């Protein structure tokens, strides 16, 4: 039987590849990454410097994969990594990292810090150092099918409500539909207007689509906690459902981490390419708009600004689409400072929102978002991620600001020409 620390180190080792070795070899300890991280910026505590979050992984790399490190280990002069070290780093690798990837933009030698933080979490899970909240969310995702514990019958009930409200019947398990629409639990439970909005848009655009009663959840707690096995199983459920229904394309819902999971990480997790395409809902909406399949009317005059979800813009490459969509329904769209790929995170990505240990720090880090919002001076804030939306509302309440948060898809649906 190996001890938990041995399992942890083995998992760290397994994650280390040529890019990671090149990153550690290149780091010059300039500390520039600190200024890019919302947690350092809002606390000024140097322990939140992104490269410091990677100390356990760096030590494993050094001791296991470098000549000098191995020599030192053989001679018994290097300090072994202990459970206590990993315990201390739990806060740094989970509570104070939203996997937002902003640090990876500034490093002068091009170190992709967030790539390594995501991978470090594998070692943390293997050694038993993941936060309780995330463990529970992951276990709900595995057993119930949703990190928030939304069952298929609850989902169907929510869809039924939405059908009653908008008067449009929504298809389940329609064989051979063009699109399979996935959801995030937050959209189902907290922002269920999204369901009706989608149905209205698809009806007008005459899109052939369906839900699946075997896989509706797009978010992936396995990725956030750092367990590739579980993450792969969650992706596989979607892949099986999509391939069974023989859909051409799977639509990722607004949720940014869901998009990363299904669009970029998914094929690597299950070890093969999909037999279908994946498109983000914003890409699809913009495409439908450009093709003239959805007709919009009315321009809002009230000042409106947009929060770019990290996984959609910086880690997802969808920057222009939301802007074009907003500009087609608003005549007064203003950017926040540092928008687009430089946007500051809402504070709750990467599993932070499912981790109550992080609540206090998360709200503190919202100060940077507040600054951005204050400079934009808009009373309406659009975003395109249910998790961001939750976090933004939370922060706005905490800081007693007067700003309304709206989802982009609903905004578009509200402007559909009847």
């Amino acid at each position: 039987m190996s001890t938990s620390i041995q399992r942890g180190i083995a998992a760290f080792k397994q994650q280390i590849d040529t890019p990671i070795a090149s990153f550690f070899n290149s780091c010059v300890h300039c500390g520039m990454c600190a200024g890019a991280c919302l947690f350092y910026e809002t606390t000024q505590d140097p322990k939140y410097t992104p490269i410091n979050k990677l100390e356990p992984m760096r030590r494993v790399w050094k001791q296991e994969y470098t000549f000098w490190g191995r020599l030192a280990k053989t001679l018994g002069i290097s300090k072994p990594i202990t459970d206590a070290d990993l315990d201390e780093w739990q806060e740094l690798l989970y509570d104070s990292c939203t996997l937002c990837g902003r640090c990876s933009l500034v490093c002068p030698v091009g170190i992709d810090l967030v790539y390594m933080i995501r991978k470090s979490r594998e070692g943390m899970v293997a050694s038993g150092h993941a936060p309780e909240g995330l463990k529970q969310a992951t276990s709900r995702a595995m057993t119930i099918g949703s990190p928030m514990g939304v069952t298929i019958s609850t989902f169907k009930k929510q869809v039924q409500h939405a059908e009653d409200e908008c008067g449009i019947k929504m298809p389940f398990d329609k064989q051979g539909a063009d699109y399979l629409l996935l959801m995030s639990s937050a959209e189902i439970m907290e922002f269920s207007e999204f369901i009706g909005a989608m149905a209205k848009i698809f009806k007008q655009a005459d899109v052939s689509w369906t839900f699946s009663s075997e896989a509706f959840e797009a978010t992936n707690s396995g990725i956030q906690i750092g367990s590739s096995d579980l993450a792969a199983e969650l992706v596989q459920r979607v892949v099986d459902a999509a391939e069974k229904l023989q859909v051409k394309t799977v639509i990722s819902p607004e949720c940014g981490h869901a998009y990363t999971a299904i669009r970029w990480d998914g094929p690597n997790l299950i070890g093969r390419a999909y037999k279908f395409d994946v498109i983000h809902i914003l890409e699809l909406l913009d495409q439908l708009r450009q093709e003239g399949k959805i007709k919009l009317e009315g321009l809002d005059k009230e000042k409106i600004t947009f929060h770019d979800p990290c996984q959609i813009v910086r880690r997802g490459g969808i920057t222009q689409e939301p802007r074009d969509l907003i500009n087609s329904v608003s005549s007064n769209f203003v950017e926040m400072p540092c928008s687009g790929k430089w946007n500051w995170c809402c504070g709750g990505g990467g599993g932070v929102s499912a981790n109550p240990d992080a609540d206090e720090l998360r709200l503190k880090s919202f100060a940077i978002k507040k600054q951005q919002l204050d400079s934009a001076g808009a009373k309406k804030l659009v975003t395109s991620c249910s998790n961001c939306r939750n976090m933004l509302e939370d922060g706005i309440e905490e800081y007693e600001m007067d700003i309304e948060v709206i989802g982009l898809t609903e905004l578009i649906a509200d402007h559909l020409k009847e």
Partner: protein
Amino acid sequence: MTTMELLTWVRGPGMTIAIILMLFGVAVRLLEMLLLGRKKDLSVARVPSTAKYGWRTVLTRSLPSMACLKAIPVTFITGYIFHVGLLIIVVFYVPHILFIRDLTGLEWSGLPFWLIDGVTLLTMLAMLVTLWYRVWDKVRRYISRFSDYFVWTITFLPVLTGYLLYHRQFLPYNEMMIVHIVSIQLLLISMPMTKLMHTFTFVFSRWYSGEAAGRKGVKV
């Protein structure tokens, strides 16, 4: 051994040994890095050539960035000055060019002495500020280890001794020349053992980051 004999030895066989040790060490370190391998990414890229984005980042991370300048002026400005300064001193100081010519047969024209002199002073100044900032600023201090100060010292010494040598200060010419050359050799040999490896690996790290982001259509 007389001073002259010692000088001849450090310039000749001594230098050869140092260069061989450096090259061998760097080769080993690069090999141990490359042998780890990188899994093929199975997701469908947004762009036809992700490699192009890798090369793009290799170049663009050397360009001045307003975002970084504003966020962290001291590290940014001094870092820029001493890297460019070191490059100019090594590549465009006439005695260095002659030394490289003897070694490789390659030759190019150098810059006037007064200019190199100014660049050297500026480089040393920038490096001193970097050191001060490493000790004074809490982030830099927090993430610094012994090796950071060691690397600073062995990078500073060749510049300092070269400056003293040119101005005939501190030690007689030949003695100072020996000290200067040995300090360079120390720097060379330390390359594969320290963060000076970034001289070789920065191309890889930038490329991997740029390539991965390029897959998603993001220019980083």
